[in-house]
């Protein structure tokens, strides 16, 4: 550290923290690469769970892993054909 920054106090985050943050971001992206087989399996499992609550259009379903600047999101678009009455009931009974 030079004299100036000693007097002024350290400017900004330490380089270690910069390294950590850059590493975090880069790994978010690296780790987000998921094999099509796994994504398919995930889709199957998810749709089966959702099908317990509503009637959905399996064919029209789209699931993707979206990464932008500093985050990764699992985005699903699942067309709903009909809500099951039973799911409303169970919700109500849960509230009462």
């Amino acid at each position: 550290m030079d004299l100036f920054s000693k007097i002024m106090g350290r400017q900004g985050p330490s380089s270690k923290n910069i390294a950590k943050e850059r590493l975090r971001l880069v790994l978010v992206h690296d780790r987000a690469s998921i094999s099509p087989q796994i994504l398919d399996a995930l889709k199957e499992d998810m749709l089966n769970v959702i099908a317990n609550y509503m009637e959905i259009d399996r064919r029209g379903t789209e699931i993707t892993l979206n990464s932008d600047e500093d985050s990764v999101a699992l985005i699903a678009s699942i067309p709903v054909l009909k809500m099951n009455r039973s799911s409303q009931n169970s919700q109500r009974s849960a509230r009462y």
Partner: protein
Amino acid sequence: MGEVIVITSGKGGVGKTTTTANISTGLASMGKKVVMIDTDIGLRNLDVVMGLENRIVYDLVDAIQGNCRLKQALIKDKRFENLSLLPAAQTKDKTAVQPEQMKELCQKLKEEFDYVIVDCPAGIELGFKNATAGADKAIVVTTPEVSAVRDADRIIGLLEAAELRNPTLIVNRLRPSMVKKGDMMDINDMIDILAIELLGVVPEDELIVVSTNKGEPAVLDMHSWAGQAYRNISKRITGEEVPLISLDADSGLVSKIKKFFGFQA
């Protein structure tokens, strides 16, 4: 039946070969029967680090293709008769060895040796697949740098995909003074990010260069910090508990680090 351990990293130059030489020599000095395999075809290195470069007649490819008997390709170490090296081929084609053949080779070797230590080339191509094919365990080497840790993360994913679960981590070339200043990631940072078990920490040490110049692994040098770290790691591999003392950036860091590497503070 022995154990096959692959030393890998993804990135080149982080210390795989240094680690292979030191761990193997460390284990041999504890009386274990050890063989090292250099799988870096075309970029033979381990022989030089071990000071055995003048003794090579046959190599890994010869042994696998049956140009010689396996025993003939094993080079005995100068210092320990229970330590041998199977050198990489220097001039042959990289595709001369396939994973199936490596698996078979490791299987044969572990019937006779307590430890088969495999030095993996950089990268994630055929060389990586060959080196990991016959392995029972994996040790991932990294340095405290963004690029090296990133590659280590990728390698850990590939190891798991190859059913080599729970690899352990060696952090090499740590500089305590830089960690203290906040200019180098510390051990906890890396363990947090990679989420794997720590096997050991090896400090940056000029004596590694000296030992490589001489062809004598630093693990035998009682004055070397890195050597002490490798002695501890070798013991941990045999199941001995050598405590890890956690580093923190507070006062007394240097004495803590000394203890961490096994020195008296």
